[in-house]
């Protein structure tokens, strides 16, 4: 772990890199900081300074005297050495390098102490990534598609040839019951909607079947069993988040489950054989989409009959597929890539795709091959070729398909030259299957597909359509957007807003918002939640799974409401609990009750901050962790940039301090001066939640002492705010302007994947103002972010085109 020179934010300032003003607003070099700086250097083998030693050398002066000649006055480089002095070494590492190797050829010219001073200076002035972010103004970065965008785009691209996805709201699966083991239309006895597939027929036929054996043989020599019957369920399954899903069918009878692929069953246990009654298989699916699902079942000469359809969602336990994920309508087959990609860079807090690697390039090629094989295999249905088509018609349709494929992938109208290059050339002189394969390969490997439009000095209507689609859906623009672009109807703010209003209704927008909340609430970084079985014997993986559902239900309700009021995230005092959760957290529901919204006001619940999933996630297996909770509040909610601790400190073992409350122990652990600078702030935020134990359950006592949940926070305006307990801190947070801005900034950067300051130094404040004055409507905020960034992109590109034109005249290529 690197050790950074830490700016002292001992009091007041909330530091952000400002475009233009490169320096921190107020850095106070007190003697304390100098002592601290030498303390940090203590951690490495090089330094041996003891605390309390007199102030050290002036790194800046030494740099100008001994280094600037080669490295440039601000490390930018010179003609002799035209490489800028930047990187991510720690101060300690830098000092070592300087001491041992610099100045080049004559390292003895700089002493060890001077090396240390130099390292400290350059690290903060321009060397470190943070310093660089400070110096260089934020810009909209040229980028490729992120991995998720690639996967979504390819899937949606192929779906566009298959017709629309239906989003009907009728829940459950369409069920057809047959009085014979074949699915014989004449023998269809019941048609209805089953909300869930969980049946035990025992030794009987299903309810509602005719009682007399109504056995008309299929063929003259067919054999029957009076109790035989078959059932088919079909419909759609909604996938809430991208990931690997395990589907499980439990039955002693013959069953076949199809998910997405109607030809090849995911689970094929049609032949019952031996004692295997649990059949499972895994499949990768994309979030925000509905996939076709079909389950077939028959019973023949077997003692009993039963069937359960279950799944295991990512990070959940196995369960019967709940009704809320099942719909009765049909949906076309979709393509989901299985090629693994190297993950995108997330070091700046959002998934960013501004670099390439060999691993990524290889994955692109593999994915393109995978897609090409699929397209060739399904060519007839994708290109609309029927048996009656003549060979000429077939060739025509193939060419048309290819042209549309390229146009949609490149999200623009193709020029005649482009048609020649990307469609006609690959199709020429080879059999059609080979030609189509080449078109697909070429298209998906081309920069026209792989790179986003901005940064090419031509933010035209097509680029606008793309911008909107990738912002809200992380995918290609649909036909309506492309059409609007073609008709020049994406020019004005009103036109753009109209499209965005439509796009907000698409389930993919909701999927992206869900992803944002997962990141904002740090759910993606939580390790597996396991608690001490002695202290919490009833807390298990199933409870954790239920808690995830509970939070999901809350967020769904919030986002489904047209108001989508952000403040509810802090002020809602109710929880969704089912029977199991009610047993553990209260609520007096029956043990097997389904999810219900219950008020927990007396138990001090207040919004997501007090949702047991977060409280338990930010805790140890026995104790709560005010530090983790405090860091969460500081980073996600208040938008503070916390550096890693200067020293890696193991938490104090609770049993070694058995009589201390958690609060007391944490205070003890973070009492060193080096820790206090951040922890005085972090701790208090976390202490406010001390009424909730390691499982997120409310408590009055901690180790027989009454819980002390009070704390203070010095806000941005310089006022020390105090709060006692979760409700008070939530009230403070919901009203704090820095919290609004932190939310806006994080949502902006998550959806746009660009630094917000690249869109203007006031962009954040303007958006936050808009958010506040529109009742904190999250949908409204998302809309404003999308429309505003889109309109600003136009002017940014026009501006940079102008400056590029100016500078091109001055410099030579």
């Amino acid at each position: 772990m690197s050790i950074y020179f830490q700016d002292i934010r001992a009091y007041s300032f909330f530091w952000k890199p400002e475009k233009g003003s490169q320096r921190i607003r107020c850095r106070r070099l007190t003697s304390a900081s100098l002592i601290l700086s030498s303390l940090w250097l203590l951690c490495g083998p090089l330094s041996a300074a003891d605390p309390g030693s007199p102030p050290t050398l002036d790194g800046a002066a030494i740099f100008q005297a001994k280094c600037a000649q080669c490295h440039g006055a601000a490390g930018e480089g010179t003609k002799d050495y035209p490489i800028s002095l930047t990187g991510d070494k720690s101060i300690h590492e830098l000092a070592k390098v300087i001491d041992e190797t610099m100045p080049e050829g004559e390292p003895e010219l700089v002493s060890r102490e001077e090396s240390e001073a130099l390292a400290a200076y350059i690290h903060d002035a321009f060397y470190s990534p943070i310093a660089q972010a400070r110096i260089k103004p934020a810009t909209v970065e040229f980028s490729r598609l992120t991995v998720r965008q690639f996967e979504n785009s390819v899937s949606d691209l192929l779906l566009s040839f298959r017709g629309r996805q239906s989003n009907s709201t009728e829940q459950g699966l369409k069920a057809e019951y047959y009085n014979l083991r074949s699915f014989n239309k004449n023998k269809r006895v019941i048609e209805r909607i089953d909300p869930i597939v969980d049946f035990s027929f025992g030794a009987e036929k299903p309810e509602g079947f005719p009682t007399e054996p109504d056995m008309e043989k299929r063929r003259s020599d067919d054999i029957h069993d009076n109790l035989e019957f078959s059932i088919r369920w079909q419909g759609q399954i909604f996938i809430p988040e991208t990931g690997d899903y395990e589907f499980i069918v439990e039955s002693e009878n013959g069953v076949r489950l199809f998910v997405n692929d109607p030809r090849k069953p995911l689970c094929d246990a049609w032949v019952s054989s031996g004692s295997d009654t649990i059949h499972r298989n895994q499949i990768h699916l994309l979030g925000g989409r509905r996939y076709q699902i079909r389950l077939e079942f028959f019973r023949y000469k077997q003692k009993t009959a039963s069937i359960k359809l279950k799944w295991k969602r990512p990070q959940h336990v196995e369960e019967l597929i709940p009704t809320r994920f099942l719909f009765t309508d049909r949906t076309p087959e979709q393509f989901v890539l299985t090629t693994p990609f190297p993950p995108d860079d997330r070091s700046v807090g959002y998934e960013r795709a501004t670099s390439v690697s060999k691993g990524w390039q290889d994955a692109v090629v593999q994915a393109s091959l995978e897609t090409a094989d699929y397209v060739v295999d399904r060519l007839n249905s994708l290109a609309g070729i029927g048996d009656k088509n003549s060979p000429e018609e077939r060739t025509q349709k193939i060419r048309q398909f290819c042209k549309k494929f390229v146009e949609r992938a490149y999200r623009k109208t193709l020029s005649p030259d482009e048609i020649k290059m990307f469609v006609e050339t690959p199709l020429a002189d080879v059999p059609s299957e080979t030609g189509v394969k080449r078109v697909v390969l070429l298209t998906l490997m081309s920069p026209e597909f792989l790179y986003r439009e901005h940064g090419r000095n031509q933010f035209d209507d097509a680029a606008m359509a793309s911008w909107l689609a990738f912002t809200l859906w992380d995918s290609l623009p649909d036909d309506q957007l492309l059409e609007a672009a073609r008709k020049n109807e994406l020019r004005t703010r009103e036109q753009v807003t109209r499209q965005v209003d439509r796009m907000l209704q698409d389930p993919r927008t909701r999927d992206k918002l869900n992803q944002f909340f997962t990141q904002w609430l740090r759910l993606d970084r939580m390790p597996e939640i396991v608690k001490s079985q002695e202290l919490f014997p009833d807390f298990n993986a199933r409870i954790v799974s239920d808690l995830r559902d509970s939070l999901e239900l809350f967020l769904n309700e919030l986002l489904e409401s047209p108001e989508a009021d952000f403040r509810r995230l802090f002020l809602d005092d109710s929880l969704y609990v089912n029977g199991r959760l009610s047993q553990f957290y209260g609520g007096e529901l029956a043990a097997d009750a389904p999810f219900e919204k219950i008020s927990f006001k007396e138990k001090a619940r207040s919004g997501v901050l007090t949702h047991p999933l977060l409280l338990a996630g930010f805790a140890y297996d026995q104790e709560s962790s005010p530090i983790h909770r405090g860091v969460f509040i500081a980073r996600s909610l208040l938008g503070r940039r916390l550096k890693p601790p200067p020293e890696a400190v193991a938490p104090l073992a609770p049993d070694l301090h058995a009589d201390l409350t958690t609060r007391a122990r944490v205070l003890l652990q973070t009492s060193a001066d080096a820790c206090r600078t951040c922890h005085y702030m972090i701790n208090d935020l976390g202490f406010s939640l001390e009424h909730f134990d390691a499982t997120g359950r409310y408590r009055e006592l901690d180790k027989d002492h009454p819980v002390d949940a009070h704390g203070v926070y010095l806000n941005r305006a310089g006022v020390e705010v105090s709060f006692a307990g979760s409700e008070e801190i939530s009230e403070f947070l919901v009203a704090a302007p820095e919290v609004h801005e932190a939310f806006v900034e994080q949502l902006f950067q998550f959806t746009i994947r660009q630094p917000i300051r690249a869109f203007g130094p006031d962009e954040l404040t303007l958006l936050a103002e808009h958010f506040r004055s529109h009742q904190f409507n999250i949908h409204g905020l998302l809309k404003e972010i999308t429309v505003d960034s889109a309109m600003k992109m136009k002017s940014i590109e026009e501006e940079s085109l102008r400056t590029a034109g100016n500078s091109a005249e001055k410099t030579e290529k």
Partner: protein
Amino acid sequence: MTQTTTRRDFLRHLGISAAAFPFICNLPSLGFESSQARKQRLIILFSPNGVVRKNFWPNEAGELNEFKEILKPLEPFRDRTLVLNGVCDKIRGDGDNHMRGMGCLLTGIELFPGNIQGGSDTPAGWASGISIDQEIKNFLQSQPETQTRFGSLEFGVVVPERADTWTRMVYSGPNRPIAPIDNPYQMFRKLYGGVKDQESLKSVLDIVSADLKKVESMVSAEDQKLLLEHASFVRQMEQEITAAQKNPMTHAIPQLDPGVVVANDNLPQLARMQIDLMVNSLVSDFARVATLQFTHSVGQARMKWLEIDETHHTLSHEPNSNEDAQTKLTKINQWYCEQLAYLVQKLADTPEPGGQGSLLDNTTVVWTNELGEGNSHTLNNIPFVLIGNGLNFKMGQSLKLGSVPHNRLLMSFAHAMGHHIPHFGNASFCELGPLNLG
């Protein structure tokens, strides 16, 4: 032609980095052999619905002097053929004779009780044990001298999509049927997938590079770096593919006729394509065990090319007194025998790579069936016709073995390959050990 000895040398010789390996690992191996012992191969060919006995079985035991009508296509290979009469499928238990004929044929063990109802008897599930080809494959793969890329390959010709006891004869274990691949393009992809991909890739990389240059010209100097890096990876890939293609193969990659749909009417063409692929895969030493399944148990091939409009299984139910049916069935069986002969001829005409003689010298092809006879559904006298010298049996013979359980024959196959199993399938049928055919 030189032969490299190890896979790593092979890669070094091509100058290909590990990153390109995914593209070239589907190239044929160049016969990585280190032992001097000859290769031994076993191929099992299956056709359904029994045979017309009077036109099939040689009259006498002893030296094979003459073939009846059905086996006539094997005339050129009479001295290398072994016809076994009296080998019976004695497995009983659940399932009707077709199901047991198919499911117990290579496994020699009962089917599980289950829910799939045949034309009679109790319903059944899958076979409760491994099939002999997989047993032998596991043995061969367990020894470095006989290891091959796949161990075994399962081919099919017009096999229905459904998985049930009638469509599967190969099992890797109890309840673990293995599906034959009846689509030659799919089989080709399995064997040579990477190669065809390379050609397509190569043809588009030029255009990708050109396109990258075009976009480069539109972006700022800073952003160009990203594109240049990307372009360098593309170039690298181009070089890797070119290098891979330059490497001389010791044998050609088969060319498939495009656009042949897997359907009844294309049975003859598909049979040829599959047999060609099979022989090719043996030359490449991708496997030493292979099976080829024509249709399935109760298969309903409609051999219009023989001017037979009725379907096979339906015909096979006609009584022996129906002369017309008997003639047609004889023609059908003879046609299957012709496919067998085509395979055997190819093996005879192909030199053994890195060795002496032809592939046929080191391969034994077994033609078998699920039933002894279609209308009676008898499981006695299952047709077993062996051709080739892969197993060190005494060929050019017709044997009448009385009534021996076919488990013993399956054991003989294993023993002849060096795998001396004490029993196979249902052990109670193995007490007398393998048949002595050497």
